[in-house]
Every structure is written in structure tokens, then in C-alpha cells.
């Protein structure tokens, strides 16, 4: 597996998809695969994408204290799952969204989630927010 350069800047695209390709014929499928490979290839070559992979439609969900609950995939047919991700190396949210809009799988019903990478975990961010509120609160 290619090691991916660690970065706290940039954006993550998450591709949410059902298994719509099951309804495509062989030719359509090959055309789509070629299109998406080209899309990714261009983004990687230009340096706008720093990595990305597809995810198998199977897996497990861990939950509850100590992770006792382990629910196996595969996921139910036509359920929307994260089918893959792409790490973008662009400067602005607008640019990341503009790239997301060109994803070839959108025409088939997939959705693309665009999220900024950060180095602060959500709990830490919330903590800092609380501290700021405390400082601003009247004595």
C-alpha cells in the first residue's frame, strides 16, 4: 500500500454510494471505470490529489464500551456506504467543492462529501471553545 503523505491541510472527499453499478451493462461499466480512472489520474498528476482508494463493500462496525459489539458486513444491498475517498491538496474549500462537482459517479447517484482536514480532534476543538467562552464570561 502506498504510504500517504501526512498533512493537516487539505480536504477529504468521501464518496457515498449504493451499488448502482450492478445495473450497468459491461460496456457502460468499462466506460465508467475508464472515466473515473482518468479523473483520478489527472488530479494526481496535477498534484491536486495526494491519494485515494476504493473501499470494499464489506467490513465491520465496532461499537459500545470496549468495542464489544462487532457487526459484520457485507452491507445490505443498495445501502449507501462510503465507497472510497480522495485526499485533496488544494488551498480552499471552494476549490475542493469545485473538484467534487466533477466526480464522474455523481451522474449515477453517488454523493460526494467534502470535509476539511484538521489537526484538532472534535473534542479538543470543543474544549477550546469552552475555554474561550469561560474567558469571555463576565466575572
Amino acid at each position, binding site marked *: *500500500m502506498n*504510504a*500517504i503523505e*501526512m*498533512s*493537516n491541510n487539505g480536504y*477529504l472527499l*468521501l*464518496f457515498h454510494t449504493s451499488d448502482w*453499478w450492478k445495473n450497468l451493462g459491461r460496456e457502460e*461499466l*468499462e466506460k*465508467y*471505470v475508464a472515466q*473515473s480512472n482518468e479523473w*483520478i489520474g489527472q488530479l494526481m498528476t496535477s498534484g491536486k490529489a495526494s491519494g*485515494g*482508494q*476504493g*473501499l*470494499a*463493500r*464489506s*467490513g*465491520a*462496525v*465496532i461499537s459500545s*464500551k*470496549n*468495542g464489544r459489539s462487532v457487526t*459484520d*458486513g457485507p452491507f445490505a444491498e443498495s445501502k449507501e456506504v462510503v*465507497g*472510497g475517498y480522495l485526499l485533496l491538496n488544494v488551498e480552499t474549500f471552494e476549490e475542493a*467543492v469545485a473538484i*467534487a*462537482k*466533477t*466526480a*464522474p*459517479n*455523481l*451522474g449515477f447517484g*453517488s*454523493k*460526494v*462529501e*467534502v*470535509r*476539511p482536514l*484538521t*489537526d*484538532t*480532534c*472534535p*473534542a479538543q476543538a*470543543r*474544549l477550546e471553545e*469552552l*475555554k474561550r467562552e469561560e474567558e469571555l464570561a463576565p466575572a
Partner: protein
Amino acid sequence: MNTQNQNGYMLIFRGNDWHKGLSPEEMQNVSERWMAWFKGLLEEGKAVAGNPLAPEGKIVSGKSGRVVADGPFAESKEAVGGYFLLNVDSMDEAVAIAQMCPGLPHGAKVEVRPVLAECPLSGEAVPDAQLAGAAA
């Protein structure tokens, strides 16, 4: 469940509301343990990448991405809060690592997914023969 995968595994952390109801000290504690967990995995070479995600985002959909909605939903149990990329060979090992997530006792969930060699959009959208090869 001991499937092998040469391309590694992705941990997707779900739930962006698990820290609600925790005291600042508890939040600090979980946050520090999560960071230490990640650093340890990096040092062992079991993780190769990971990031928290900022809470704001957009969801693009429709032909040519003409619909751009705010996302993810606030306080959702499914919202993606971050990810790790693991460099381990078996689902068992990936699950064992996921079970150590410090957010679990507070309601976070961890999704464990095998990474494919195929492109991120096609994912499993490949002819059956190729798919069989990738899954081997």
C-alpha cells in the same frame, strides 16, 4: 472473519456528538488518549495516515454536482469525524485495533473497511473477474 487484504484497512470514525455530556477534563483525557493511540500506531507502522475532520462540510450530489448541501448533520451518530489508514494484513487485526478506540465508551462507532487497489470511484464497480482478483 480472518480475511486477508494486502491493501490495508480504513478506520472511519462515526459520531460527532460523543463528547457532549463529558466534562472538560474527560474531553481532554479522551482527546489525549486518542492522539497517543494514533501516534503509537504510526510508530509501530500499523497506521500510515489519519486526520480528524473539521465539523463543517458540504455534500455534493446530482448531475454535475448541481446540488450542494451543508453537511454533515450536526450531532449525528453517523457523521464522519475522522479516519485512520491501517497497514495491517488481516481484518481480525484491523478490528482489534478499532476496538481500542477511546471514543467507543462514549458512543463513537468505528467502521472497518478493506481498502481496494481499484480506483476510489469505481470501488467494486469492475467486471467480476477483476473483482475476484482484487479481493484475493
